[in-house]
């Protein structure tokens, strides 16, 4: 399916929505209204939990904050619903920013537990504040009016709800296809990788959290003025989990899953309410809860992906937009060949009683390939983590391009011009090769969330794409740019990591066992690539076990054993050093 065909299908869908009130019964339109309102909140949840990996049980609380804000302002203070929208959105955003700032540093399940806590606290707050009508709630909320025309019927508010939903959906899709959106998609599965690309994961998480809350706020505002009544019950944690169920049914990781999931669960809820009283008169309320909970558990056990990813397998794939020809991103001026670029002085790192790196000093000169070798457990990877800031030093000093980077955060070191690959490949399996390499350009580009959402970033994005394609070309993966990273064999995944690192335009490239898992022809290609990079003035620090590979390539070698530096020099010198022979081959008795 071409892009044009895809846009035609989408336009036909919107047209169907426009004519729906003429074709469907008022009751069906009411159902569609509920679907739209739920889908808005679920859309936020998909962004937050499905894509960003922060599982929240408390989204209903944000829906409630906006709903109560607008209810109180319009009923008790007599303001217009539109003022209620502004206050509801601002208030929800503020509460989310504060809650997020406090809780988002928490790992996985602790974060989710905290969402239960503030979800419940908010519910009890609604139920106990006299000003908010306690458990009776606030009734007689006025309808929203546009140009003096009140949207009091379900057919009229229908258009407003679905316009909000479709605009939100398009803007969210824009976001995910932008610089910051890629960072959101990379959040899942650990922070070391995102930090190594110069991304501040906490900031990205916080903004995602606020965006999700704002989508809930829109949902809450529409809900308050559609049902014209608010009480604590629809904002309880049990509704939060209903939202999760919707997201899960539709497909946690797909934006359109929000609408599909909200529709399926709402229709199911409706039909259950029809036939449960027939089966068990008088007990339908609790049966509904049981049916939904059991359904949810079964889904979690057996079909975690949801409907949309399943359906997409049977539908034609939309052709990806080919990267536009565009000018290049700015390149750094590499330091003069032979200058010291990185100097490590007396680096020491202890883990309890074990000294993993013991008073190690060496230098990397601009434009050289330095090999860091040593037997297993010599402390090479720890040294790597000390330089990149993934681990703090206990003692010593590391300077890069004349600046002390010993105390800097990982992402600041990355931004200063050190790019790395990982011994255990860290890729996001569901991102395409192109997107993966685009992540590498994060530190060189500047478009923020707003620019991404409103598509003001296209010129920069085109240049970043051109750069990413160039790096993919270099490692020989350009023809597979739109495949998923997880589908590559391990050797190619290592090459992809190198392309991602190169896309950051580093002064120093640090490779942790890049040849592991490569076939011999691929190793030769990699060696050629590294030689070409050196010729361009890039400095490379290489940890590698394959001695033929290292010795044929590097200018100098540093040998480590048991955490300490054994010796350093050209391959020929190191090879003939008796201490090195002893470390590798055992004592020459």
């Amino acid at each position, binding site marked *: 399916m071409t892009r044009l065909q895809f846009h035609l299908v989408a336009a036909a869908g919107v047209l169907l929505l426009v004519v729906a009130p003429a074709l469907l019964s008022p009751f069906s339109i009411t159902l569609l209204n509920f679907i739209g309102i739920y889908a808005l909140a679920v859309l936020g949840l998909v962004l937050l939990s499905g894509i960003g990996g922060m599982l929240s049980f408390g989204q209903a609380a944000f829906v409630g904050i906006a709903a109560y804000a607008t209810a109180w302002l319009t009923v008790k203070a007599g303001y217009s619903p539109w003022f209620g929208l502004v206050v509801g959105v601002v208030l929800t955003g503020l509460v989310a920013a504060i809650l997020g700032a*406090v*809780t988002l540093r928490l*790992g996985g399940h602790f974060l989710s*537990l905290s969402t239960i*806590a503030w979800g419940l606290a908010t519910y009890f707050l609604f139920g106990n504040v006299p000003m908010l009508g306690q458990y009776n709630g606030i009734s007689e909320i006025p309808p929203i009016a546009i140009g003096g025309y009140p949207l009091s019927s379900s057919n009229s508010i229908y258009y407003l709800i679905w316009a909000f939903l479709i605009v939100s959906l398009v803007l969210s899709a824009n976001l995910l296809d932008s610089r910051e959106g890629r960072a959101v998609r990379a959040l899942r599965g650990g922070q070391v990788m995102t930090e190594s690309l110069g991304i501040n994961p906490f900031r990205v998480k916080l903004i995602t959290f606020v965006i999700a809350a704002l989508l809930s706020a829109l949902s809450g505002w529409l809900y308050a003025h559609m049902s014209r009544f608010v009480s604590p019950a629809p904002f309880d944690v049990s509704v939060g989990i209903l939202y999760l169920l919707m997201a899960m049914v539709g497909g946690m990781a797909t934006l359109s899953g929000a609408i599909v999931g909200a529709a399926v669960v709402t229709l199911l809820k409706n039909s259950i309410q029809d036939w449960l009283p027939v089966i068990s008169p008088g007990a339908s309320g609790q049966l509904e809860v049981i049916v939904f909970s059991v359904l949810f*558990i079964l889904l*979690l056990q057996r079909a975690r992906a949801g409907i949309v990813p399943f359906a997409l397998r049977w539908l034609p794939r939309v052709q990806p937009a080919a990267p536009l020809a565009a000018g290049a991103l700015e390149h750094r001026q590499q330091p003069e060949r032979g200058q010291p670029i990185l100097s490590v002085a007396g680096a020491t790192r202890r883990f309890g009683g074990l000294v993993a790196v013991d008073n190690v000093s060496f230098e990397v000169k601009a434009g050289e390939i330095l090999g860091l070798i040593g037997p297993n457990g010599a402390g090479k990877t720890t040294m790597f983590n000390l330089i990149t800031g993934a681990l703090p030093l206990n003692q010593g000093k590391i300077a890069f391009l004349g600046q002390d980077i010993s105390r800097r955060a990982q992402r600041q070191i990355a931004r200063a011009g050190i790019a790395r690959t990982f011994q255990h490949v860290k890729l996001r399996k569901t991102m395409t090769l192109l997107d993966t390499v685009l992540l590498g350009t994060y530190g060189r580009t500047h478009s923020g969330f707003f620019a991404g959402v409103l598509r003001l970033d296209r010129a920069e994005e085109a240049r970043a794409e051109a750069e990413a394609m160039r790096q993919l070309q270099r490692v020989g993966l350009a023809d597979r740019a739109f495949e998923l990273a997880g589908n590559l064999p391990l050797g190619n995944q290592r090459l992809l990591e190198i392309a991602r690192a190169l896309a950051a335009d580093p002064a120093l490239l640090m490779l942790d066992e890049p040849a592991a898992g490569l076939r011999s022809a691929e190793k030769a290609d990699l060696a050629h690539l590294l030689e070409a990079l050196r010729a361009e003035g890039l400095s490379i620090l290489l940890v590698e076990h394959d001695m033929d590979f290292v010795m044929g390539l590097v200018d100098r070698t540093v040998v480590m054993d048991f955490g300490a530096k054994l010796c350093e020099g050209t391959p020929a010198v190191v090879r003939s050093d008796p201490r090195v022979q002893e470390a590798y081959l055992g004592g020459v008795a």
Partner: protein
Amino acid sequence: MNGEIAAILAMDGIASGAIYVLIGLGLVLIFAVTRVIFVPFGDIAAFTALSLASLETGGRPGTVGLVAVLAVLATAVEAIALARNRAFHRLPRALLFYLVLPLIPAAAVWFAAGTTLSMPLRIVLSLALVLPIAPLLDRIVFRPIADASVLLLLTVAVALHFALSGLGLMFFGPEGVRTKPLTDAVFDVAGLIVNGQMLLILAASIVFCGLLFLYFEFTIQGKALRATAVNRVGARLVGIRPTSTGTIAYLLASLLAGISGVLIAPVTTIFYDSGFLLGLKAFVGAIIGAMVSYPVTALGAVMVGLLESFTSFWLSAYKEVLVFSLLIPVLLWRSLSFAGTEEEEAEE
């Protein structure tokens, strides 16, 4: 507020804290061994209280039906799993563990209904009745996804709570219950009236914490549980089966929850869904202990009890709001003290 009121509030707080201690320890135990944050754990306590109340009035507790349904389901799940592996020779054992054993106390209660039983017998019967619930739920719900992420297990646990509260309403009805006090003794300590029930709660809490400590330190089974908690794969390598240590953890924890249910039933009115809040407050304590430390969990649970008791004096309407809001600074403190030690999460 004068000293006397403060003392009464403190006593009250420590007593309800002691109940949260028992539930909190159970939560930590289950989490450590199975990685499941067992959200419906408070429900076990509430179901014990409801069963006890029902036996007291000579009724037939709804638990009988609940256990029967779960036992049949668990047996079916186990039988299907065995049939898939063609391990039919293990079928009799499965029937014994998942059908016969759980149904023995249920049958006993079924036939005893209507007759007047002595208080200790009622308590023992209620405990025996409730004990199989958590292990059966484990078999039905958690074991098929035992290797999933903590987050997924948590989501399942939350959904399970809502299923259980629906079942609770079905089997127990909407009425709240309160059982007869376990003791009528009243003591006068330095001018303060201390009732026996409170002392009993405290004593029971201390005794069972002590027993748990002895069990972990001095029995091979307790050590196996600790080993599974530290490293599941490692435990398997030395011949410990994580599924059976899991079952033991659920049984032990259920015993703790059951006892807390028996203790709380005479002091608070318990409804079919009271367990959720009970469990979550114990949770706040468990999180203070970072879900790993038993002593800190106990301390945290007592703190929650105290906070609740004092806020109910000053701001009774906002009691729950404050207790759950407390979790946020606690989590913040936890996250600061754990900064940098976070393990890389596996990508799903």
